[in-house]
């Protein structure tokens, strides 16, 4: 039973880590665009 919750939790941890990776990438690209606009 605990493996069931572990599996569901692991799924969402993987997706949340990927979303954090995307938001960091977006922030880096925004900074680069600002740099180019200067």
């Amino acid at each position: 039973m605990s493996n069931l919750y572990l599996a569901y939790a692991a799924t969402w941890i993987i997706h949340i880590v990927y979303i954090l990776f995307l938001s960091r990438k977006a922030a880096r690209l925004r900074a680069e665009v600002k740099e180019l606009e200067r």
Partner: protein
Amino acid sequence: MRPGFLIYALATMALLSYALYQGMMVAPTERTMGEIQRIFYYHVPSAWTAFLCFIANFLASIAYLVRRNPKADAFAVTTAEVGVVFTTVVLITGPLWAKPVWGIWWTWDARLTTTLVLWLIYVSYLMFRRFSTGQQTATLAAALAIFGFIDVPIVYMSIRWWRTQHPKPVIAGGAGSGIDPEMWSALLWNLAAFVAFAGLLIWVRYRLERTRQQIDELHALQALASTEGTLTR
């Protein structure tokens, strides 16, 4: 943020919540495995979503080789990355399901091994794209993706072609296969939710990749302008 994106994101969140409710509360408990079988509602839709991502990557790679359109290349890298995320979910939830049911976390049977190879192929593809700096990167990546895709039908057919520790297909598996209609319903809700969620991730990641391509173009133009300036001086 565009209103269309916001509506889509909210609808996806609602769908994921309802799918979770279907998998945990509505679907009946399986007779032999018990509650642990509910991992099925995350494991199988994640695998099918990953397959859809890799099919999209395959088609985008062909489109890039034919038309040399950077949008096709951006879509290819996007779908490969999202496909790897969903395959990672499959490779983590699988052993968590296997341990209480089979008594082992992992075995080198055809389905498990070909899935691990699939993950390694697309991780290699992404690493190649990340670290290669040559002008032919997109072309070589597209060729790699087309050959790498060969493993997708092998993964799908592995439980039909070979005797494996992994269960035989319960869907489209011929006579004797099939699941309870309520299990079907929960499975389809979860599949719809995961495909919608993958679409959301692809939407965001594609826009980032297009921005990166445009930044690279600007850098190239700046470099060209400064070279021309040096030559005319």
